Structure formats: structure tokens, C-alpha cells
């Protein structure tokens, strides 16, 4: 008799089939910390093993344009840990905020990308 723990590899399929991902995590992240229009700063945290938070927006200040969905953060999901879904936010930055050398001729240019809640703080 084996006591070795067998990881359930069909777990994701069983929760997402016919519902979709990220739809299958809807309602599981609790109360969102930020709302549309909030000014937020991207934290610069260590990223051992896996992340989907790019390096270039870290430390930058942007504005939440949309609460997009609930999902486990990529850092957890990479290990099939789906226990603690978080809110995800779409955040827009002025290009000048991301790239100090960005041309002065185009001050309105922006970039939008997404973050899980753990990566953001109030600014």
C-alpha cells in the first residue's frame, strides 16, 4: 500500500469545464482592496521561481482602469495552488512614468497592463 500523496491533476478541469477560466473563480476573492480610478503603485517584490509581473512597471504609479476578474495569482497558480484567488486590476500608466526618457512630444501616451492585488499598494 502506497502512502505517497497523489496530486490531483484534473482539479483545474473539474472546476473550469463548461464555466471557463477565470470565470470559475468568480466570487472567491472577497472584497477588493482598490476601486476603479484609484491611484496605485506597483510593489517591487522578490520573484523567485515564477511571476507574471513585469520588471518595467515596478515602482511606477498608475491608475486603476478596471477590476477585471478574480483568479489565483500567477505565482500561486504556477504550482497549482488555487486556494486563495485575488482580485486582478487593469492599471494604466503614463509612458513617461515607466520610461523617464520617453519623448516629451507625446505626454499623453499610456500603457495598460494587469496585476494581482498583492502587487499593488495605495499611492
Amino acid at each position: 500500500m502506497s502512502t505517497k500523496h497523489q496530486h490531483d491533476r484534473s482539479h483545474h478541469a473539474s472546476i473550469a469545464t463548461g464555466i471557463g477560466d477565470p470565470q470559475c473563480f468568480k466570487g472567491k476573492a472577497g472584497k477588493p482592496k482598490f476601486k476603479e480610478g484609484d491611484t496605485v503603485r506597483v510593489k517591487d517584490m522578490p520573484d523567485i521561481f515564477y511571476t507574471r509581473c513585469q520588471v518595467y512597471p515596478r515602482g511606477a504609479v498608475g491608475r486603476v482602469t478596471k477590476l477585471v476578474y478574480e483568479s489565483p495569482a500567477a505565482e500561486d497558480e504556477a504550482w497549482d495552488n488555487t486556494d486563495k484567488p485575488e482580485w486582478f486590476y487593469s492599471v494604466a500608466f503614463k509612458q513617461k512614468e515607466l520610461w523617464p526618457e520617453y519623448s516629451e512630444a507625446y505626454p499623453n501616451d499610456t500603457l495598460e497592463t494587469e496585476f494581482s492585488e498583492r502587487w499593488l499598494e495605495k499611492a
Partner: protein
Amino acid sequence: MSEHHHEPAPVVDEVSDFEILEMAVRELAIEKGLFSAEDHRIWTEYVHTLGPTPAARLVAKAWLDPEYKKLCVTDGVEASKAVGVDWVNSPPTHFGTPSDYCNLRVLEDTPTLKHVVVCTLCSCYPRPILGQSPEWYRTPNYRRRLVRWPRQVLAEFGLQLPSDVQIRVADSNQKTRYIVMPVRPAGTDGWTEDQLAEIVTRDCLIGVAVPKPGVTSNTTRPIHKAVHPVEHGHGH
């Protein structure tokens, strides 16, 4: 080189490291029972049926129907159903895949706002509605440069935008996939949905081009010859 000497040319195309890696991972996954060879074949065949036609149709419909346009902008997954794409149930898995999460955002351009899409981390692309991404979309060149020098990169595609137009780069780094809904161009009054869909090319849907009456295909990217080319000569 003392005499002219031909080495035999390879009879098969070179297999890249990434292709070898894909085969190794695929074979391991099949051996471990994560999916079967049959599952893999069904998935591959499904992916090869996809193309940009449904996304072009979605934009054309939205140009003609303001109510549908609202739906596109608020719920891209729901709006996709009207053009035959069910993000959840069309893929053989019935839940998408990590590279085809069921979350589409339609980015609406205005006369003063132009969206363009990239995935800096890998090559996330709204495949169920747009098919396989073009080769250039996956290159480090496009991915690194678009976020930082969007105007220069767009100019290389032949799209020069005035300074009063805001460029918004969308970097699809998580579970949202994007298509761009460009502004309906002048000179298309009275056009039918079919006529409009024809000018919404794949490049327009990524955001590196804007639709023009009479233009129904993607432009070829200019290829600049290397300044210091690497020689692959024989027998030196």
C-alpha cells in the same frame, strides 16, 4: 579556399531547440497520462481551423450596431458568440487553456486614442477569435520595443500617428486577451457588414494598422539587411 567544394545541403528543415523542447514535454505529458496523443491531435486540428475572420466580423457588426458595440466593450466573451466564437465551449477542453483564457477585452479606439497590443512576457494572443499569431508578434524585437518605443515601431508598420492621438499599449500579461476595435474609416458610408469586415485585417485587430477602404490584406514588414551579416560559408 583552394578548390570549389560543396558540402551536402540538409534535406530537412532545421529543428529548433524550442521544437525539441515541445516534443520532449509533449511526450512526457502523454506518458504521464496528462493528456493522450488523441487529445493532442484533436487540439492541434482545432487550432489550425482558427483565423481572424470572426474578429473582423465582430468589428464590422459593432460599426453598424451601437448596441452590439456596447456589448463588445463591456463583455467581449458574450459578444464573440454572435460571430460564432464560444470562448468556453469552442475549444475541445471546454474551459480554454492557459494560453487561451476565456477573457476577451475589446479595446475601442477613438479619433484621439489608438490601442495596440503586445505580450511582453511571452506571446499571449486571442487565438479563439484571431487564430495563430504572426511570427513578428512573437519576436523579442516587437515585444521589447513596442512597450517602450510604440511610435517608432508603429512607424515601421507604416502607421504614423499625430501627436494629439494618444497611444495606449496593452500588455497582455495575465488572463485577459485583447483585440482592437479601430475607428470606422471615412469613405465607407453605406457599406454592408461584409464589405466592412473585409478591410478589418489581422494587423488592424492587433493595432499595428488602421483600416482603409480598398486595403484588405496585411502589409509586409520591411526587412532591413544586416549591417554586419554573419557568414555561413562552407569550407573556410
